[in-house]
């Protein structure tokens, strides 16, 4: 049986089944926010890996076939944006101000909050890039003295937080315009937040995807400066 636990086929089927269960739970609960298919699937797959004592690296290798499509899917975010192109012009200035400001706040507040609660400098550097999409947050953690693998995990958690709680918190904050909601969600929860935004509303999804891309760029530029200031 041990061949099974090293087989891409097993890992792919496990992931697909878990995702289908997630979709079913989402539908059954009438689209409850916590029942995000990605969260349900992650919990199911994670628990299975722990129970079967599977090496996570084997699982990640085995599901490469699936993860590969994140690249083309990111490119595909141009399509919802294209459908909203007429709204883009009036949002250029707000985007150029809000996204870099958001990047400074994300990085700075993560560092300061970790410090106040007794985190060491390594943890501060590891947490700092977590709002940027995973390939960028990993690279930034590497070049700025964090733990890249832990940064990747925390980035995913920040994304899932956005998929689960993003729309509710935005409503609490009285942010109602679809464009503002999408831009905010993409700025703090990258692609995973965008997946929720797309499910909420076309405009929200389009601008979330755009904000994700701009945040990747802004975080890369401001992170070294903010770290130099605070550390």
């Amino acid at each position, binding site marked *: 049986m041990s061949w099974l636990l090293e087989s891409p086929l097993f890992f792919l089927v496990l*992931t697909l089944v*878990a995702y289908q269960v*997630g979709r079913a739970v989402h539908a059954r609960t009438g689209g409850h926010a916590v029942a995000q298919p990605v969260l349900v699937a*992650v919990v199911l797959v*994670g628990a299975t890996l*722990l129970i079967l004592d599977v090496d*996570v690296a084997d*699982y*990640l290798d085995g*599901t490469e076939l*699936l993860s590969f499509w994140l*690249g*083309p*899917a*990111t*490119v*595909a*975010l*141009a*399509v919802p*944006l294209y459908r909203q192109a007429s709204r883009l012009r*009036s949002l250029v200035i*707000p985007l150029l*101000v*809000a996204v870099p400001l958001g990047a400074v706040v*994300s990085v700075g507040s993560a560092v300061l*909050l*970790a410090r106040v609660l*007794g*985190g060491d400098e390594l*943890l501060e550097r590891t947490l700092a890039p977590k709002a940027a*999409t995973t390939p*960028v947050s990993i690279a930034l953690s590497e070049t700025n003295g964090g733990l890249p*693998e832990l940064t*990747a*995990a*925390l980035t995913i*958690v*920040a994304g*899932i*937080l*956005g*998929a689960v709680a993003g729309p509710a918190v*935005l409503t609490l*904050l009285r*942010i109602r*315009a*679809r*464009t*503002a909601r999408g*831009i*905010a*969600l993409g700025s*703090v*929860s990258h692609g995973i937040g965008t*997946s929720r935004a*797309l499910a909420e509303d076309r*405009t929200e999804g389009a601008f979330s995807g755009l904000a994700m*891309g701009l945040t*990747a760029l802004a975080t890369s530029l401001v992170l070294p400066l903010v770290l130099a200031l605070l550390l």
Partner: protein
Amino acid sequence: MIAGLTWLLGCQLVGEVVVRATGAPVPGPVVGMVLLFAVLLVRRPVDDAGVLRTSDALLRHLQLLFVPAGAGVVGYLSLIRDDALPITVALVGSWVLGLAVVGWTVTLLSRTPAGRERR
């Protein structure tokens, strides 16, 4: 479908090449997204064009593509547990602050009043 995939993968490929050639601090797929956006603006494809349908199909299951990375977090549970308090508070706190600052800034600076866009 195949024409659509060719556009998506082609744009990503060009994006990756550009990023590596220039050392730009963004992921290749993000450059690919900007490139495809420009292509769409120029070519103005019809509603049922392959690239639009393929993109919609891929984005409909965007969450599936994050499941492997998400499940990979179990490999770091012990590291997270060691610093659970600072990690949780810093992560959630800075997430809320970022969300609020970006959302409020866009709302303030948008020329169209928030009420008009609500649907």
